[in-house]
């Protein structure tokens, strides 16, 4: 009765499949709905929001709220818009991500391929840094930043985020490189490549997937951070703090359309990183190094 069993297997497969797609579709709608609300309302004049339905499409389309959020909105005491703060965030996030990812890769390489006495303890300590809550280090960090003259500056923020990120990036790269064949490193040693040459020519070219993971993680965390930005930003506050100042302002009319536009502007870079880098997740760059 092989044929009969196969029939039932196929039809029950169809039912399951419909069910799966239904669940996926509902989940997607659930997650997209808030974003839809934000986009729609950021393109309406304010009176349409205050006077009517949040879910409706705009009757008169306008990009005025976006322009205002970007360049003329009142942030704190000055009407600069979010533009300078966006720049601050970029200036903070790019070096922070690059440095912490680079250090994490180097750490992972050393911890797996150049083992030394006590390396697991060191790794454990690095891992421990992932579990320290931000609030605990605020005061010691402020003291240190003050002493080394980086308080209230972008380099100070970069340092804070690198210190916090290195634990995570090391964890990623160490676990990735642990499955990287040692024989490749040995072959490269016999071929005459040194410590950095092996790292640069052999390890890094196949680290694509984990670098994407690390960059997405670090970029999102550093970009979205509010606490460190508010505490150590000084005059160079990042986007998140500025957005808070825009939305939480207690004077004047609440311009919801401008707030929505500002919020999307603040979220856009992380969204972009996901869209651009996400597809590299699945690429199997290790294929063919050892027996297949």
């Amino acid at each position, binding site marked *: 009765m092989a044929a009969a069993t196969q029939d039932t297997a196929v039809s029950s497969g169809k039912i399951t499949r419909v069910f799966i797609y239904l669940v996926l579709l509902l989940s997607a709608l659930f997650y997209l709905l808030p974003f839809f609300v934000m986009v729609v309302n950021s393109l309406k004049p304010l009176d349409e929001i205050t006077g009517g339905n949040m879910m409706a499409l705009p009757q008169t389309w306008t990009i005025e709220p976006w322009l205002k959020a970007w360049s003329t909105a009142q942030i704190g005491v000055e009407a600069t818009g979010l533009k300078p703060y966006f720049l601050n965030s970029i200036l903070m996030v790019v070096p922070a991500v690059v440095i912490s990812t680079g250090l994490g890769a180097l750490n992972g390489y050393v911890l797996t391929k150049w083992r030394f006495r006590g390396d697991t303890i060191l790794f454990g300590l690095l891992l421990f840094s992932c579990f320290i809550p931000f609030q605990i280090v605020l005061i010691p960090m402020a003291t240190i930043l003050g002493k080394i003259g980086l308080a209230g500056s972008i380099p100070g923020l970069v340092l804070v985020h690198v210190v916090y990120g290195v634990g995570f990036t090391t964890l990623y790269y160490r676990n990735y490189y642990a499955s990287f*064949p040692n*024989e*490749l490193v*040995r*072959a*490269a*040693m*016999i*071929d*005459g*490549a040194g410590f950095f*040459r092996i790292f640069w*020519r*052999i390890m890094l*070219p*196949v680290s694509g997937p984990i670098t994407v993971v690390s960059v997405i993680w670090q970029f999102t965390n550093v970009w979205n951070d509010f606490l460190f930005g508010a505490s150590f930003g000084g005059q160079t506050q990042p986007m998140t703090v500025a957005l808070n100042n825009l939305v939480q302002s207690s004077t004047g009319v609440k311009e919801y359309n401008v707030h929505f536009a500002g919020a999307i502007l603040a979220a856009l870079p992380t969204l972009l990183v996901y869209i651009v880098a996400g597809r590299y997740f699945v690429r199997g*760059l*290790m*294929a*063919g*190094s*050892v*027996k*297949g």
Partner: protein
Amino acid sequence: MGFLDISNVTKSYGNIEVLHHVDIAVDEGEFLVLVGPSGCGKSTLLNMIAGLEDITSGGISIKGRVMNGVHPSKRNIAMVFQSYALYPNMTVGQNMTFGLEMHGVAKPERDKALADVAKLLQIEQLLDRKPGQLSGGQRQRVAMGRALVREPDVFLFDEPLSNLDAKLRVDMRTEIKKLHEKLKTTIVYVTHDQIEAMTLSTRIAVMNDGYVQQLGTPKEIYDTPSNLFVATFMGSPAMNILPAKVSMIEGVPHAEITNGAGQTASLRFSQANMADWAGKEVLLGIRPEALTDPEGADRKSRNIVTLQNAVDVIEPAGADTFVTTTLGDVAVIARMRADSDVASGQMFDFAVNMEKAVVFNPKTEKRIAP
């Protein structure tokens, strides 16, 4: 003083000594195979020659230059790994010339060396591919090519064929042998496969428990194994080992064994020194091919003893038929011609070539004759 000299080398991890006083002198152009079961220390020894592991005591020198503490890249060696260890991000050509590039060889010379080796190994059409696009046998060739391009003093092979399927393995084995005969390079080759060891080597070092059990030509190892371990490890099926008692009949030493029916059979020794062991217990080693049907017995042998025994199992293997019988209370395998008229359960005449018998001391397990 050999071309590659391993003298009194030991290796310890903490307090545990895993290699004990290894002494091997390899001449230029020799093909030395290190063979033994897993954990015997053969790969460790190879890694020490390569410089990937420290030498605890003793010395290794190549061309008279002491290599202790010298970086792997400065020993002028090349190694082929079990997993091939091809760099996945580079093309075949880049893989093969990476070593030359690291040693600062100019591009035109690299390209020439690459072209020569690619031609030799017939992989010219693969040079622009990535390792991931190659089959197992092709990867194997590329891995060898990467070693050849460097023109090193010593080639080190770490079980290079164990990831290939059975047929390809035999082909590549022949190919490696051809290559060695053509290039006359010095090779140290690690394997756990005793057939690879026998076919490829000019000399074999059989290792077990961190000791070199025997070092000799394949024929020496096969015909005169120095102890019970070497005797049973080399050869397939393994050498039959049966307990025997030495007795003197008309002044000539004989091996007394019990046959399957519990009766005593006497097999005359060819080895004169067995008279010293009269009245004592020994272990008699007989290779399966020295225990055969009377028509298939070696005609040149001057000492064939025939004895009747019951056949337990027959296993036709195409070229040969393997027959299991019971002698001296142990199961014994005989190798017979494919068309010998042997049937299981019947009595059969077994011809024992006593000239080829090897005798061991049952206490020390060392060979006492021949």
